[in-house]
């Protein structure tokens, strides 16, 4: 079998923040009634995380649950375990009206870390990143300049960003420009 590689092979950039591509990440889209027992069992069973509230992400390392919409979760699992986790989830879902699909290879993931991470994000997305409005565990689906993107804040104040793999190069270049040395605004 061919060896899977991530979109940008772990490319990284150091500016006013550090921008790095996170490499391979298993992702499963789960749609269904988020209040139904089979869906909760499938989601929590695959990740060991609790169900996230509205616009929240419960993520530890490579496993977690992200709230995408009132009927959709993004399930993060280690890339090597996607097939096994998906099979277990499909079993747990049983006859429930739901859908679980492996979307790992359709996506790319970045990390933005450093003192100015909020600023770099605020340059690209129409979201209020003020410390009182967006904190650790908060999750948003929005856009990054001209393409769709989703992101959440981690406990250490860094951001993780998910975008479509087809636009990974565009998003990386966006982040590099937004993180150019000397481009700090100092607004937060």
């Amino acid at each position, binding site marked *: 079998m061919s060896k899977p590689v991530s979109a940008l092979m772990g490319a990284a950039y150091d500016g006013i923040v550090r921008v790095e591509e996170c490499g391979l990440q298993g992702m499963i889209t789960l749609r269904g009634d988020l209040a139904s027992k089979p869906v909760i069992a499938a989601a929590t069973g695959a990740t060991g995380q609790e169900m996230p509230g*509205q*616009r929240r992400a419960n993520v530890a390392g490579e496993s977690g649950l992200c709230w*995408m*919409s*009132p009927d*959709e979760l993004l399930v993060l699992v280690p890339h090597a375990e996607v097939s096994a986790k998906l099979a277990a989830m499909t079993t747990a879902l049983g006859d429930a009206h739901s859908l679980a699909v492996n979307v790992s290879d359709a996506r790319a993931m970045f990390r933005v870390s450093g003192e100015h991470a909020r600023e770099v994000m605020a340059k690209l997305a*129409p979201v209020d990143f003020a410390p009182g409005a967006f904190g650790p565990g908060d999750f*948003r*689906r*929005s*856009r990054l300049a001209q393409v*769709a993107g989703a992101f959440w804040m981690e406990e250490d104040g860094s951001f993780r960003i998910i975008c479509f793999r087809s636009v990974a190069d565009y998003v990386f270049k966006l982040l590099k420009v937004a993180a150019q040395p000397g481009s700090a605004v100092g607004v937060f």
Partner: protein
Amino acid sequence: MLILHCPYCGVDADETELAAGGEAHLKRFGPGSSDDELHGYLFARENPKGVHLERWRHASGCGKWFHAARCTATLEVFGTYKAQVSGPPQEIRDAISARRPGWSWREFS
């Protein structure tokens, strides 16, 4: 700049996150309807100066369709509400009446 509250994900979404979906509460006329009804369904649209009910989609967000009641003259937003209704709910009508007494839009007032 228009900011609409998405009733599904609770975000005050910037206009650039949204996609306009045209007029709200259209009644569909399909096979078996008269030519006039089909013509009205396809082509006849309100174009008010004032209170207007519209469909919007939180395209770069949760992806859900919702409704918005706003004023085309001042861009004032009276409220947003979910898509699974065939007319504006009472609290939206009250909110519009508070700002635009005597308003009417198609069969709603």
